[in-house]
């Protein structure tokens, strides 16, 4: 039985899959940055970025709706920005019937821009994960000068994620199996439930600590000296450089055109 964490990586013999992970990482991050820098209301720029995204998705051979389908994860957070249309000064263009709250034009523009940025950014992140194996992504981070210790730590975490998540799942199943309801009985208090959940967490912690001791012993037995080493697996080829530069130029286009206007 496994914890069903849906790892988004999809193996495909596509152009994007075969690019150097550093290029993909930089492209994705650059895309998110570019979208973030796009001024409010420049809809054509957002449209351009969307087309760029579709093109990239097309190049992955994962189906053009791949990222769109998974992009609604940002939806809950939209609530945070819901006040924007009502609290930005400007011309009121619509009122909520009954409540009489007015939506202003600048407010609406800003709200929709936030949505657009958020929606585009998350899809770029989804695409990145779908075409890059996680270990390669970590390697790319290390190669781009992210702190090695952090990258190695995340690597270890990834390795043991499923193991520990499985333990947690099985613990919760064991608890569910002992969570019976006899008709007419009182429900247990919040306090009791919370402490029981806490005990499970504590238990998991102990097992994790002990596991880490065993893993450490195994590492020492194979000569571990505190330094995480790995073989370089990726080298930038011509097509990686070309892709990187192309993406860079494409991202700059909408931003620079606006400035000239």
């Amino acid at each position, binding site marked *: 039985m496994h914890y069903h964490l849906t790892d988004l990586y999809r193996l495909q013999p596509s152009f994007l899959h075969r690019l150097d992970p550093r290029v993909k990482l930089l492209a994705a991050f650059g895309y998110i940055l570019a979208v973030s820098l796009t001024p409010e209301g420049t809809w054509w720029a957002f449209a351009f970025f969307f087309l760029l995204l579709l093109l990239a998705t097309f190049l992955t051979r994962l189906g053009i709706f791949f990222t769109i389908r998974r992009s609604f994860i940002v939806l809950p957070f939209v609530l945070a*920005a819901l006040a924007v249309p009502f609290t930005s000064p*400007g011309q009121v263009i619509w009122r909520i019937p009954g409540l009489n709250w007015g939506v202003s034009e600048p407010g609406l523009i800003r709200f929709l821009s936030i949505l657009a940025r958020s929606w585009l950014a998350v899809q770029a992140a989804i695409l990145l994960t779908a075409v890059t194996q996680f270990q390669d992504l970590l390697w790319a981070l290390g190669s781009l000068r992210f702190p090695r210790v952090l990258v190695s730590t995340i690597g270890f*975490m990834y390795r043991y994620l499923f193991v*520990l*998540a499985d333990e947690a799942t099985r613990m919760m199943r064991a608890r569910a199996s002992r969570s019976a309801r006899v008709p007419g009985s009182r429900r247990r208090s919040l306090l009791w439930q*919370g402490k029981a959940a806490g005990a499970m967490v504590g238990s998991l912690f102990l097992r994790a600590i002990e596991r880490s001791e065993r893993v450490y012993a195994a590492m020492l037995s194979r000569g571990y000296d505190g330094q995480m080493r790995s073989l370089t697996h990726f080298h930038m080829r011509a097509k990686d450089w070309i892709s990187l530069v192309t993406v860079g130029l494409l991202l700059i286009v909408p931003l620079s055109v606006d400035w000239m206007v």
Partner: protein
Amino acid sequence: MLFSLNEMHIPDGFLSTPVAIVGWALAFVFISVAIRQTKNQLGDRQVPLMGILAAFIFAAQAINFPIAAGTSGHLLGGALAAILLGPWAATLIMTAVIAMQGLLFQDGGLLVMGWNIINMGVLTAFVGYATYSFVRRVTGDSTRSRLAAAFTGAWLSVEVAALATALQLAVSGTSPIQLGLPAMAGVHALIGVGEGLITVGALVLLQKASNGLLVEGENAPGRRSANIIAAGLLVALVVALFSPLASASPDGLEFVAEQNGFLDRALDPTYSILPDYTVPFIANPVLTTIVAVALGTLLVFVVAWFVGRNTTRSEAAGD
């Protein structure tokens, strides 16, 4: 399936670019120090231990308990990690968790990850730890006092993270501070209770299973500086909340008031919506929230203390 059950992971697009970049800069500083401190603390155990414990936090965040009508309480974990291992180890662990959640599951954005790390990693760890240390210094070292201190620390850690998130949203113009702050503080006051309960439950078990473990965090490196850092962060947060930065659009709510007209007509002229210190504090949401959180912390501690007393008494009398 939702991988993170706490909606504090800010997605990309909700913070302005300059704000996001500042977040990364800050996060980078804390991460660097955390790496160095934990290296001193753990030696070559650092990577495997921190990595596996990061996996632990991730898995632990999935453990829930039902509250009411389909909602459940969860652990964020920064405070617990800090109490057990010290604030710097906790920072590193939570950073790994947040990075993984953003990179692998798109829970939390990439550009805004700096602030997510600060909110859910640094702030929770330091506020949790400092509160735990401080309360224990005041109330002594009995089991009851430790548990009450831990509960308070965990609760406050969640509150402060929420306040910081509201601040970042306000400065970015995404959510006016006067609405966002009370909303975040209010919702997370409840979520914080869940955090407190689970944290205490974990410590109760760990206390019984292995007395030595609880001492580890207390002897962690930087424990003295941790309190200073925590204090500094809190002060910075509160100052920022009152600064013009936060009320980026003070005209916003006035605009609303104008639209609705009746507010100006019906209310006493002294009830203005603009933050104004000469006005009765009920009308200033930011001040009210801060005061409420401070009072809430005190209340939380008192309740935890008394409930803890009952629990430990019955446990002693029982088996």
